[in-house]
């Protein structure tokens, strides 16, 4: 157990350090959520005029949606890092060393969660600057950021597992493109739940992105139902654990192919 933890930390450190050495990557990672918030905020501004839309300002409503979407996308593309390590032989090097397999995945997920955290904070600060108000206060924001990072980690684990199974850049790109936007729009990220079509509402009930968005909004609201937030947190935690386990298992499938 202690070995798994220390190995996870070594791997986390490796990924964070390597990211820090890619200035372009940092710039894009930080600027992208800002663009989303500004762009979606402008395009969908008139949403508040729809009869039945509860929030007074769309920025109030949109900011948690963008936080979740950012975490989702970071997670969805995480498999690309695995592909690069596979192509360079780095994965093989660790697989023939005593490096713990779980730690090879955990290190990536922790790094992902840390990056999501930073991105979320940027989005929240920008939302505040644009006049968003969050009655849930710091505790609500903390809940939003935590639960979003958890979603990012779960999706990131799936993406890592898929990269190990597919072992091709093209497959990971195609799958991410295919899945990420529909997951975002089959949720209440950009539109109040009772204003989206009935069938989308039904699908959204099974969409982890919607669990996250709903729990995040609930935590930021005036009278937070913490039982609801904790339940969604529990679902996402379970999902993340299952996905991380699957991703770790995917090493076996990879090893059968070499």
């Amino acid at each position, binding site marked *: 157990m202690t070995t798994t933890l*220390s*190995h996870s930390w*070594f791997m986390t450190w*490796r990924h964070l*350090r*390597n990211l820090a*050495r*890619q200035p372009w990557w940092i710039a894009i990672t930080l600027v992208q959520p800002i663009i989303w918030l500004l762009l979606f905020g402008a395009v969908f501004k008139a949403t508040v005029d729809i009869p039945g839309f509860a929030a007074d300002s769309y920025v109030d409503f949109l900011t948690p949606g963008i936080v979740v979407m950012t975490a989702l996308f970071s997670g969805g593309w995480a498999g690309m890092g695995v592909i690069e390590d596979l192509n*360079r*032989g*780095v994965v*093989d*090097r*660790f*697989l*023939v*060393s*005593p*490096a713990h397999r779980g730690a090879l995945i955990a290190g990536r997920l922790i790094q992902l969660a840390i990056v999501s955290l930073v991105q979320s904070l940027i989005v929240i600060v920008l939302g505040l600057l644009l006049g968003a108000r969050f009655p849930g206060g710091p505790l609500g924001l903390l809940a939003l950021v935590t639960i979003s990072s958890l979603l990012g980690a779960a999706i990131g684990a799936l993406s890592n597992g898929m990269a190990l199974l597919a072992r091709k850049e093209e497959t990971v790109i195609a799958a991410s493109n295919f899945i990420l936007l529909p997951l975002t729009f089959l949720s209440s990220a950009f539109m109040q739940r009772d204003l989206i079509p009935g069938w989308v509402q039904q699908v959204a009930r099974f969409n982890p992105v919607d669990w996250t968005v709903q729990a995040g909004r609930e935590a930021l609201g005036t009278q937070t139902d913490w039982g609801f937030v904790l339940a969604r947190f529990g679902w996402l935690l379970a999902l993340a654990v299952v996905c991380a386990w699957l991703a770790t298992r995917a090493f076996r499938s990879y*090893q*059968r*192919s*070499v």
Partner: protein
Amino acid sequence: MQTAHDILAPMARDRAAAAIEAHDLVKTYPGGVRALDGLGFAVEAGTVFGLLGPNGAGKTTTVKILTTLSRPDAGRARVADLDVLRQPDQVRRLIGVVAQRSGVDREATGRENLTLQGLVHGLRGRELRRRVAELLERFGLAEAADRVVGGYSGGMQRRLDIALGLVHRPRVLFLDEPTTGLDPEVRAGLWEEIARLATGEGLTILLTTHYLEEADRLASRLAIVDRGRVVVEGTPDGLKRELRGDTVQVELAAPAPDGRVRGALDRLATVREATVEGRSLRARSDSGATAVPSLLAALESAGVKVASVTVARPSLDDVYLRHTGRAFGQADEEAP
């Protein structure tokens, strides 16, 4: 009468002396490519053993199995007295692996790469820092230690690969085609490093290569691998000695029909085992120099024009040809 002890004792002794044992390894990849077809060999502790063969012969697959990365469909293997299939975790602590594909972290510095590898192997604190510094010094990387590996030359990167494989002082080191793709000068430098590893610390080294010269120079014993099997095993000198005599190589002025050339040579008592590939004719002779005049005369009377003749001591190339029926370079080109 022979007792059980008499039978078992030599086996036990063999096992203690062997640092690597592979028995009847079979591996078929999806799509039906049979990479290994009953491959087996044993490596005595503290020696350098070469697996020599063209690309696609099964060398890398063998290394992947022995280093626990891949599993065979059938067969057994032991490394450092551990069962590779049953005790992979223990095996990984005792082996160093320098794979064909480098595996270094290009965004990290040489020192950072070595430090992470040491941490994974359980080294910590002062001991780790000292070991890393020692390896950087030993492989001539001290100056570049804090530069990102992406900027290293091919030779530097390869030296770092080897250093990575040695951080935890392994008992068995696997070098999979360590000098492929390097300049001749860099290769010669690396050969010196590898030769030095073998003489120090009692390390057992399994080296795979498709350079005959490399195997000849570094390995104390070698196995020639072709199409997933060991075709012959021995010391480089022993294998060459088996061939007796010299190699006579004739470059023909133009490609000649195989039958006509061989027909001309069959009548000669001074040369044997003649083979023709394109414009190149090879034959063996107990005494090359005295065989040349009669060989040339025979070819001329058969109407075959000759461009040049060389007489050489047997090389591993000849050993390869003798046991596989193909010239080494040709097998390499055939490989997928």
